[in-house]
């Protein structure tokens, strides 16, 4: 898994994750995002276009992050989900509790 901050548009902090979020890599994913949140970035767009795999451990991390942001009146948007990642979000119902956008550009336009 690779994770990096790839820009900022308006007040939206953009993070790109590639590779796999599994039980081994999920803790690092969660820690990195919480570090950015604690540093004051509370409006996050996470680009998952390069993510090929996510398991329930990754969903657990995303839920933790989303709940954390709610308490800070922040916002989390996930973008560009594909293939199995998209399927996992749909089967689990996560796509109904976490905003999912077609692209980073579409997420930036959301309020």
């Amino acid at each position, binding site marked *: 898994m690779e994770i990096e901050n790839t820009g900022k548009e308006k007040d939206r902090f953009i993070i790109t994750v590639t590779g796999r979020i*599994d*039980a*081994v890599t999920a803790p690092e994913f969660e820690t990195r995002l919480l570090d950015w949140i604690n540093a004051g970035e509370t409006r996050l767009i996470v680009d998952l276009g390069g993510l*090929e*795999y996510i*398991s*329930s*451990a990754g*969903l*657990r991390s995303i*839920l933790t992050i*989303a*709940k954390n942001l*709610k308490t800070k009146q922040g916002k989390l948007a996930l973008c560009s989900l594909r*293939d*199995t990642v998209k*399927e*996992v979000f749909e*089967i*689990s*119902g996560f796509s*109904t*509790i*976490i905003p999912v956008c077609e692209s980073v550009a579409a997420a930036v336009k959301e309020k």
Partner: protein
Amino acid sequence: MPEITSPARMAHLERLIQFVARHAETAHFPTQRIREIELAVEEILVNIFSYAYPDTTGDVSLTCRVEDDLRLVLEISDTGTPFNILNVPAPNVAAGIYERQVGGLGVFFVKKMADEAHYRRDGDRNILMLIFGRHRHGAEGQEHAGGVQK
């Protein structure tokens, strides 16, 4: 039948998943189907790593074969606490963000991704057999996970 045995520890997760994925790749399963199989295998293994050996360490064994390039038949076994993971209740996948629990989601994925899932206790072993066709069967398999279906 090809078999791999490893300590039941997270450090071995990738190697064990790759063992199964290679069989599916060799039989030219579609990439998305291979990811689905990997997901099911991870969820089962992580559960074994976390709960099978509460007071000790132990092994996990996988055997895998592909029949006629059509069905991947996998057995995952451990010698830990007797436990039928298929009995774990399904999560409420319609719950809101605050009510959301992730517990149970792993086995829910297993039931969604596998065509068949069978548990048996054989002597001191828990054995879970999973069978995967080349494509995922519609949202509902013969294993009714309960909860909300599309």
